[in-house]
């Protein structure tokens, strides 16, 4: 199961990547249902920089261009974005 991860603003800078494909099956073949929290946990294992960036207060997650709660279910082909609170206008 593949998802596209996108990072913006401070997350993009801290982690040095703007977007990448993530094969969830390769990460953990035992898990059949992935939610945003499980993906955060899996990515946090990449190291302390990832753990800190993804566990900062007020982190926003958007699934297929809509802000969602952390228990939103992620499906094959979805696009999941992480970013800090928005400051447009």
């Amino acid at each position, binding site marked *: 199961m593949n998802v596209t991860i996108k990072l913006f603003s401070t997350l993009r800078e801290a982690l040095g990547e703007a977007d990448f494909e993530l094969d969830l099956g390769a990460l953990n073949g035992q898990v059949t249902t992935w939610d945003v929290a499980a993906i955060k946990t899996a990515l946090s294992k990449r190291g302390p920089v990832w753990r800190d960036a993804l566990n900062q207060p007020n982190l926003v997650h*958007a699934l297929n261009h809509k802000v969602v709660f952390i228990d939103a279910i992620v499906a094959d082909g979805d696009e999941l974005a992480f970013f800090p609170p*928005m400051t447009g*206008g």
Partner: protein
Amino acid sequence: MAIQTAAIDVADEYARLVKAAPGAAVATFTGYVRDFSEDTAVHALELEHYPEMAQVVLQALGDSAAERFGLAGWRVVHRYGLLSVAETIVWVGTVAAHRGDAFSACEYMMDTLKTDAPFWKREHGPSGNSWVKRRGSDDVRRARWSAEKGA
């Protein structure tokens, strides 16, 4: 709705809006880059955005304003990229039958856009660049619209 790097031609946007949707009351808001922030001078403003999501959010915002306030027409233009002081950042126009709805819709769109549209500002100043943090007052202004009608 438009998301662009080019400067916003406010007079042209206004003319197009009222031609496309004539109405008795028109309200507009234009936001410009200021030359100061909370604790430093600002030389320029950089705006990062999430293109696909910004399109979806701004379109949904205009649609919700139209429904909520009975608008005859609306338009929002938001820039991204590197902007100089005093340049336009954002423009919102609303057309309604009465001024109350036009004013309210314009304010609702700006207050909601600031917290819900995926844009991030970074200020360039004398001591370097820094990402702008969300202000609590923006959340308070956004929350008023949810309190008035469960949005």
